[in-house]
């Protein structure tokens, strides 16, 4: 036996591995198990039959696919020209465009949906009112409560993926590669068509898949737009399975295709990116010349501003207006200004006050847990501390391909019954958030660890210190900076998470995202905007803290291995 090799810390490593397996594997295994269970306890396919035999459930599935494909297409239309303009042309105002894209990342999709209801709600929406006052028509042409409205909202909040992916691919193509084609006699269009585009295509396809998956897994925007518009997508259907009495087993069965499609497409995306991996190898370095656009540069800037107006500027303007308005419909006048909404949300109303507190406490706790776990796992994997350590890294990254809503149903199925009843406590939310964002924490921890030479630890050990001392005295202090960035990167999405929170909260454990969604029935958009604004401000504060602590590029450093 090899036991004498192994120091006492082994128990700790095994414990960490066990926690990881419980957090990630248990909910998914339970979900699968529940979906195959009959009321009497035996195995059955009944739940699947019930989930897919009704036309309206199938229709929701088709709607989701339509939504995903349309969002992917619209994201391409939005993101690719912008990426090209920023990366390869002399367009003015690039910083402004970049800030607007970053801003788009910061607005949660459900807040964006609220904003678009204010903008393009039938009759009262700002755009409709502008239209009627300009043309004198009876009614405006826009109706956000429609499939095309939903596509617009989701695409406007997802296109930054397309922008970032495409831009980083374009950034890696040096002008020399294009020059090589030009010197062989290819014109500008042929060069673009045969060289630049094929080199960018894997990134575009990858981003298309991400946008598609985002769109089919999203809950907030569809719930705010599709439900009043009287159509369903998969996620809203899943939610309705939970109306009393909850049909968890049917929901589990119905969630399976979503899970399967996600896993499959992420696998495909990895294949696409891996196969074209040569871009990063040969495209490195080399000077890049900007394409001179001449008079067209203003037109291109105009397009960029149009897209970011849809995704960021217009929504932010109307949300700010509503958050500080006595009644948002009365417009931008001084006597319409009030701090009452914010005060009410943060201070006066116990429910929202508690929710504000919960949001940041749960998010922070989840981030700490995710980070501690991720770091321990990354360390175990890097140093090969337990047999088959490599498997643990796949498990830690697995939530990346599990839609939040599916994970939440898994958590619900796992922790509402003995042996471990967490439902009704804050812990089910915290652990769900921690699990959901574990991959972000893991990718960051792993990158941070990789930058520490193992010899740093060997030096401690050979001088007489144990492994745990090496962790405490050397590895820990060296990781601090990297981990501060990782903490913020987990904290931000955890404060805004809706799609898993909506299934797991109970009366005493609302967070702001849930509250915002809950209050949307009442049509009190001033409060909704105030809640949304608090979330946005929280995010901005965290991002700025990240800039301060870690540096300007900390949000882009997480490169999943």
């Amino acid at each position, binding site marked *: 036996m090899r036991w004498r*090799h192994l120091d006492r810390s082994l128990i700790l490593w095994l414990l960490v591995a066990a926690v990881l397996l419980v957090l990630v594997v248990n909910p998914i295994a339970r979900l699968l198990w529940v979906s195959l269970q009959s009321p009497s306890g035996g195995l059955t396919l009944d739940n699947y039959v019930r989930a897919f035999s009704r036309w309206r459930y199938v229709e929701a599935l088709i709607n989701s696919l339509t939504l995903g494909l349309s969002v992917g297409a619209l994201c391409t239309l939005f993101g690719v020209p912008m990426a090209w303009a920023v990366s390869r042309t002399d367009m003015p105002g690039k910083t402004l465009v970049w800030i607007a894209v970053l801003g788009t990342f910061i607005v949660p999709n459900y807040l964006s949906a609220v904003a678009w209801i204010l903008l393009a709600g039938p009759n009262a929406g700002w755009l409709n009112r502008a239209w009627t006052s300009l043309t004198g028509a009876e009614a405006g042409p826009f109706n956000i409560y429609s499939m095309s409205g939903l596509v617009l909202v989701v695409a406007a909040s997802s296109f930054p993926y397309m922008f970032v992916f495409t831009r980083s691919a374009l950034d890696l193509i040096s002008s020399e590669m294009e020059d090589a084609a030009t010197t062989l006699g290819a014109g500008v269009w042929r060069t673009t068509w045969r060289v630049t585009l094929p080199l960018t295509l894997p990134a575009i396809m990858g981003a298309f898949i991400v946008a598609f998956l985002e769109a089919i897994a999203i809950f907030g925007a569809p719930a705010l737009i599709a439900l009043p518009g009287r159509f369903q997508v998969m996620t809203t259907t899943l939610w309705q399975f939970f109306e009393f009495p909850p049909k968890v087993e049917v929901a589990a069965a119905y969630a399976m295709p979503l899970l399967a499609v996600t896993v499959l497409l992420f696998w495909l995306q990895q294949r696409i990116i891996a196969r074209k991996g040569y871009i990063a190898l040969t495209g490195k370095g080399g000077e890049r010349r900007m394409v001179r656009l001449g008079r067209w540069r203003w037109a291109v800037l105009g397009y960029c501003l149009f897209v970011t107006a849809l995704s960021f500027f217009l929504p932010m303007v109307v949300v700010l207006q509503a958050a500080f308005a006595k009644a948002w419909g009365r417009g931008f006048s001084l006597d319409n200004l009030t701090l009452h909404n914010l005060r009410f949300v943060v201070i006066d109303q116990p429910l929202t006050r508690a929710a504000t507190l919960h949001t940041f406490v749960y998010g922070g706790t989840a981030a700490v847990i995710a980070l501690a776990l991720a770091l321990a796992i990354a360390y175990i994997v890097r140093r090969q501390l337990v047999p088959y350590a490599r498997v643990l890294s796949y498990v830690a990254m697995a939530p990346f391909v599990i839609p939040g809503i599916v994970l939440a149903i898994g958590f619900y199925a796992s922790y509402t019954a003995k042996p471990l009843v967490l439902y009704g406590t804050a812990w089910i939310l915290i652990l769900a958030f921690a699990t959901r964002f574990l991959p972000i924490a893991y990718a960051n921890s792993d990158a941070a660890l990789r930058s520490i*030479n193992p010899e*740093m630890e060997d*030096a401690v050990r050979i001088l007489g210190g144990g492994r745990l001392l090496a962790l405490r005295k050397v590895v820990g*202090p060296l990781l601090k900076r990297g981990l501060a960035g990782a903490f913020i990167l987990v904290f931000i999405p955890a404060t805004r998470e809706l799609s898993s929170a909506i299934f797991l909260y109970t009366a005493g454990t609302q967070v702001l995202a849930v509250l915002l969604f809950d209050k949307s029935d009442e049509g009190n958009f001033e409060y909704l905007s105030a809640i949304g604004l608090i979330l946005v401000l929280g995010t901005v504060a965290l991002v700025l803290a990240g800039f301060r602590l870690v540096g300007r590029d900390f949000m882009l450093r997480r490169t999943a291995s």
Partner: protein
Amino acid sequence: MSKLVLSGVSHHFGSTAAVDDLSLALAPGEFVSLLGPSGCGKTTTLRMIAGLLHPTRGTITMDGEVISAPGSSRPPEKRNMSMIFQSYAIWPNMTVAENVGFGLEIRRLARADIRAKVDKILDVVQMRHLSARYPAELSGGQQQRVALARAIVVQPAVLLLDEPLSNLDANLREEMRYEIRRLHDEFHITTVYVTHDQAEAMVTSDRIAVMNLGRIEQVDEPRTLYARPRTRFVAGFIGRTNFLDGEVRGDDVVFDHVTIPRARFAEAGELQGLVSFSLRPQSIHLHRVQVDQRPPAVPASACVVAGRVVQRAYLGEHWDYAVRPIGSELQLRVTARPHEVFEVNEAVWLELDPGQLAHIRDKLAHP
């Protein structure tokens, strides 16, 4: 008694043996280098001595006690050794003084003692004035000195060095070689030094173990290693050399066109059948051919062969000639002093001393 003994040690990564049946013994206070090309298993061997890797076969003993064996090894922190790493592994979150004092802290010395010892060792490596600095503020050479101080201050039973100079520039590297030897002469710590640089090994070591493909080819003092390499690999790895193949016939060794009595060879007793020798370029002397074509006067033990210069290069400190003995396919490399000038195609006499022909034991070259 030996301080440190490796007997039959192997280490396998999967099915490939990185270290293969290696045996080596160090006397107390001895400085031994493991010298070889990258991938020869020298670092793996060092890490096994440190306890950072475990042997898959064989044992390592220190002071007569087994510290490594397959299945049970003493962890690195229980070996009272210290190690200097290729990356130096100076902890960037601690000052110079904190780095150096770390090992003493673990040994639970009193604070005042730690200070005194740290100051003393920093004096020795001429770093006292920088003791409050952080590593990021030090040059490569200074970091190296911190690493040395940190390793020596704990007075380890064995000091291990893993290519410590490979990240320094050429001048500094030369300086640090002598520094390492100086520190050894001062503290007499039993030392294992891993390097791929023969000059480094020759300057620092009492003995050098030349490694290739996971095995030790030869262990000897630097001079012996150079003058009497026992294998083709050692002869080729330590300095440059010529290989001469011949055959023993009766009392003579017959080479291509030259016959030398066997008795003149240093290892005369063991020569049999097909034999190979290594002959250093400095061991051959060139003589100008006089008008009368008579061979030059040489000592009785030497022999003289007619040759012709094929190629030459002037390298400042010496001439590098390639000379072909008349009627032979062989090209001999000859090193000559700067004033010994010969033209290409010039006829010359080659003088060589059979006593300096080192018998190569491995027969790989012969079919």
